[in-house]
């Protein structure tokens, strides 16, 4: 069942060594499904999809190890065969999305507040650093505190620290049953209600608000879901409709996202009041993730997010992506870390922040 795929690590290493020798920056590409995210990277394309295949999968150890170019769809299919899943519900944004891209972008879907993010399930990586060395960090076990946690650092680093070759991840059992309930209410009531529920003993696995209604997903034993339904009321969505709804939230296929207006992603405390910014909102992650369509200047959005203790990113826009500016101290640390992994500055230059 586990296809051996192709180990292209030696080839990729040669490319990287050549890039270092020729001082030619590279732009790491899996399937290209998430190139819209972040700033455009400078450099020659470094295709990594050829380095693919599941290396090992132990359902009873709750661990899968696969190469970066493995299609996410293939991994999810292998897991589903054994009643398991990637709990962070990764967005694809393209049919051929790869595992490496999922980790490098660090994006997670609706289940994130209840089951953790990409970085929470990364157990180990094999990577190529800016010296062209193949290094292994972490491992295939749940608990491992030997050395700095370089594996998790790779999640969301957008390839700026090196080429992720292989990834070991914790997987989770699929819930026995799931139900989605819908409740119509105002925005203020929605934020309060979603946070109230999150503080109770409920098997929540998603909660969003589209401006008119809160939808929550419950996951667990059939009996548990039945008892919660009785307690909360609300209307249940038919199963197929519920499944496609959450997939559409994850993949941004809902009507809200079909728009040319710049789309902003604001990461805030879940109970924070709606920021005072004009535009249309979609609230996910029980309040911790706010999508905003607005024509406001970037500085305004960044300042608002910062004032609320969170951060913003211009997620999709004709102007390209842009991340929240870092404080002076953080910026210095980021540059130092970049230098520590990629002293010649060859990996995805400019993808995260301008200048490096």
């Amino acid at each position: 069942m586990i296809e051996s795929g192709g180990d292209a690590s030696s080839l990729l290493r040669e490319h990287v060594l050549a890039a270092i020798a020729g001082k030619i920056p590279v732009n790491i590409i899996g399937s290209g499904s998430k190139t819209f995210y972040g700033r455009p990277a400078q450099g020659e394309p470094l295709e990594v999809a050829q380095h693919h295949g599941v290396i090992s999968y132990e359902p009873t150890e709750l661990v899968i190890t696969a190469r970066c170019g493995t299609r996410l769809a293939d991994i999810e299919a292998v897991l589903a065969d054994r009643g398991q899943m990637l709990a962070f519900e990764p967005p694809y944004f393209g049919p051929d999305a790869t595992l490496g891209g999922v980790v490098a972008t660090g994006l997670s879907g609706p289940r994130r507040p209840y089951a953790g993010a990409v970085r929470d399930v990364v157990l180990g990586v094999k990577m190529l650093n800016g010296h062209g060395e193949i290094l292994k960090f972490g491992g295939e076990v749940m608990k491992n505190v030997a050395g700095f946690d370089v594996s998790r650092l790779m999640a969301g680093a957008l390839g700026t620290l090196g080429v992720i070759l292989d990834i070991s991840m914790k997987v989770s059992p699929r819930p026995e049953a799931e139900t989605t309930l819908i409740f119509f209410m105002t925005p203020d009531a929605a934020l309060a209600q979603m946070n109230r529920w999150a503080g109770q003993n409920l098997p929540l696995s998603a909660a969003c608000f589209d401006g008119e209604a809160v939808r929550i997903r419950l996951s667990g034993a059939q009996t548990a879901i039945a008892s919660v339904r009785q307690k909360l009321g609300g209307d249940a969505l038919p199963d197929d409709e519920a499944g496609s709804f959450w997939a559409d939230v994850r993949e941004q296929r809902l009507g809200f996202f079909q728009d040319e207006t710049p789309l902003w992603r604001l990461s805030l405390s879940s109970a924070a009041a709606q920021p005072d910014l004009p535009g249309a909102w979609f609230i996910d992650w029980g309040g911790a993730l706010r999508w905003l369509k607005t024509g406001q200047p970037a500085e305004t959005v960044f300042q608002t997010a910062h004032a609320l203790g969170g951060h913003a990113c211009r997620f999709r826009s004709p102007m390209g992506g842009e991340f929240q500016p870092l404080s002076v101290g953080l910026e210095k640390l980021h540059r130092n870390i970049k230098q520590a992994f990629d002293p010649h500055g060859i990996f995805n230059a400019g993808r995260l922040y301008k200048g490096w």
Partner: protein
Amino acid sequence: MYVLTMLQLLEPTPMNHSEHPAEHIAHSADKAAFLRQISQFLESGNMLSEPEAMRPYECDGMAAYQVLPWLVVLPETIEQAQGVLQLCHQYGVPVVARGAGTGLSGGALPVANGVLLSLAKFTRILKIDPGNRSACVQPGVPNLAVSEAAAPFGLYYAPDPSSQIACTIGGNVAENSGGVHCLKYGLTVHNLLALKILTIDGELISLGGAGLDSAGYDLPAVLTGSEGLLGVIVEVTLKLLPLPETVSTLLAVFAGIEQAGEAVTAIIGAGLLPAGLEMMDNLAIRAAEAFVHAGYPVEAAALVLCEMDGMAVQVAADLARAQAILLANGATEVRQAQSEAGRKKFWAGRKAAFPAVGRLSPDYYCMDGTIPRKRLAEVLRGIAALSEEFGLAVANVFHAGDGNLHPLILYDANQPGELARAEEFGGKILQLCVASGGTITGEHGVGMEKINQMCVQFSGAELRQFHALKAAFDPRGLLNPGKAIPSLPRCAEFGALHVHHGHAPHPGLDRF
């Protein structure tokens, strides 16, 4: 260098905690002048320089290693801690941060010419935010105090290391502490929202934020488990969870440890996610029973504790399935706690396992390796063989759900050579864990204790990458020198280089 090496060769089992010359940070700061400068902003009662006054700080929970620091300082404010770091930075003086000192790997072991920076006075819970289910605390707040403060809101902080009454949040972050419930709820890194740290030059930096992620690199993840090598943690924001409605525990008895291991695997394989899944071997069972009279079956080869928590209905469904799986996998008896008191009694033995084993022997040495669960039987056989070879008994306590093994080696420090033998035995157990696809430390950290075994787990290139990351935060290497990440000369002399693809990782170094 050569002479030193010869001396080490003459001693068959060099003590791990001997400072390696390559890891020594020399400085020529005048102590009296340094104290005068500190006294500008620190009360005299919060600076200790006399040996007797500093004695309580000479070791942490790894009491076999003791070093008297140069100075002990106990700042009460972030500004004071900044002042201390700025001075250390100015004079090139090493700094070792310390919380409650309960760590088991010597991570807070002082450096003889360094400042021991205690965060013990940072004990305020700054905010419990029930709406956002978070707690903002100072680093010296004990782990359990967070859950106690959150309880009135129906919330708690999930990671529960066994030392939770005493161990502090700052130390939990520095070590990425786990606990018996981390199979379901994760380690410290999974329950952390934001940090404030001081860098070695005294700069205050915020990492993470109010949301579930932050801009740029995941620095909270990098700091977690960094053992005081990257920065000094001065404020922590933690995630709180709703208190479970119901908690219920099964105790299953097995005639063979392999069956117990298979039962654990079957539970996970069936898609159940217990809050706790623990195993003890016969020696650990007998020790615990003699100590706390938990009602454990003393003839059993192994027992498994399986705890479910959450909604009552869910727990009932999960318990029924777990019970059937345990019986189908050879449990001779499965007991279910009938009351909260009964449940606590089940746990009393497990939680007292370390001190209970301690009663069997003058000293014990607690190991902390993680292995893929399927290799359990094999690793236990290997440990038993080593136990014979070294002539030291070993009891096994196991966070079975996540493969974290705690063999407890019994020894007597008053018998010449026994500590060194226990250390060597322990080192062999860790190497066995690595060879089985596991790691040398699951949750106790590397500290000083496992510094040599790091050379087994990582190649020279990987260690160089760790050092480069360290230098990104602390270019002069002043923070907790000689801990967690070994120098390449140390590894060359330890002679346990991890050779990748047939190439020695640092051929440029002399071999002895």
